[in-house]
């Protein structure tokens, strides 16, 4: 790993002020409005440490919830929710007949771990469903819920094909990952990506991330990981149904369903026209039946 050149300018342990454009040092990218940013999560190097969960809760001042044992492996947050914007999935796999194999191939064969997050869809269904305009696209091509505008109607919740957005029962508003909008504005990379010790969560410009992801898949194929695939990158599974691409996309080693991801998510607004047409046709059909029945009755009376 190369050390960014500017890192040599800040060698003191205690700094007097925040480092300008700090993301150049930590993620190798300068954050500028008008460009498209996102996450590339390489699950093959995730170790399930949950540093991303902690960093997210710490920065966003989110309370811990669902306190207790889930009974589901090492998972203690269960799912993404209004208070949990990063969730590390633990998928434990065994060999044939439920018996764990004595030898395992590298890159997550027995355990699949994946840090799940809001996908910040290019065509975001939650944004399309929001009647108040509380959900908006930022200047960094990310999707954020504006809290003072959200009225808690909850339309965004079923609209999300990934089950990410959630209404908090405490304040009655919709909440989800903001891709650290406040940090991006200050030139900092998102807290989860900065905290990730293995660089499983990589932050950057979308074009760079997609190129990096394809190289990684090729490298894994060469090393014998035949199941390596992208999810949510342009033209790949997950970027289906008019979603175009996901700004938070993943490198998986198994089918998306294994990671609790939908294999072919779609944009709910695509179903409006067929549904409306079917409804209108049904109404017209019932009206014709009623007219026919009325005419038949009049005919029999005459």
């Amino acid at each position, binding site marked *: 790993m190369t050390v960014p050149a500017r890192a040599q300018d800040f060698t003191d342990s205690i700094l007097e002020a925040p480092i300008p454009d700090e993301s150049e040092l930590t993620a190798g990218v300068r954050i500028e409005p008008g460009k498209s940013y996102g996450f590339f999560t390489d699950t093959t190097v995730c170790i399930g440490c949950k540093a991303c969960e902690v960093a997210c809760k710490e920065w*966003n*001042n989110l*309370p811990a*919830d669902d*306190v207790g044992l889930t009974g589901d492996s090492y998972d203690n947050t269960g799912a993404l929710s209004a*208070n949990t914007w990063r969730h590390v999935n633990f998928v434990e796999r065994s060999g044939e007949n439920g018996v764990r194999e004595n030898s395992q191939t590298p890159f997550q064969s027995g355990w699949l771990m994946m840090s799940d997050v809001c996908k910040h869809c290019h065509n975001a269904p939650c944004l399309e469903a929001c009647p108040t305009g509380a959900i908006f696209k930022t200047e960094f091509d990310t999707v954020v819920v504006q*809290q*003072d505008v959200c009225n808690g109607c909850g339309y965004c919740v079923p609209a999300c094909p990934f089950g990410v957005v959630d209404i908090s029962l*405490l304040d009655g508003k919709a*909440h989800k990952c903001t891709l650290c909008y406040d940090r991006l504005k200050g030139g900092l990379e998102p807290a989860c990506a900065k905290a990730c010790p293995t660089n499983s969560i990589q932050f950057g410009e979308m074009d760079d991330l997609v190129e990096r992801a394809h190289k990684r898949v090729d490298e894994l194929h060469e090393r014998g990981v035949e199941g390596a695939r992208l999810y949510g990158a342009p033209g790949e599974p997950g970027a289906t149904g008019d979603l175009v691409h996901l700004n938070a996309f993943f490198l998986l080693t198994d089918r998306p369903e294994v990671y609790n991801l939908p294999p072919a998510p779609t944009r709910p607004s695509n179903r409006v026209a067929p549904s409306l047409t079917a409804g209108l046709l049904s109404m017209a059909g019932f009206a014709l039946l009623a007219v026919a029945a009325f005419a038949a009755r009049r005919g029999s009376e005459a």
Partner: protein
Amino acid sequence: MPQMAGTVVVVQEGRLQLLDDSGAGHVFILSHACAAEPQQLYGLELGRTRLRIDYSEPTNVIGFLAEKIEVLNEETVR
């Protein structure tokens, strides 16, 4: 209703962290009933304002629900 006094140190959306007089931080979430709005909290953070919060304790969450927020000046606190 229980109360807690302290200084606002972090604000995110409708959540704030209050540092009590012993130096411990507590997460508060604005409830439906609270008259304060999320956009008002940022000014309190910038001013490191001292507050007294009437709160309730929701189940299954490590945090408190702020029902009423009162801005205190230094004299009132001491």
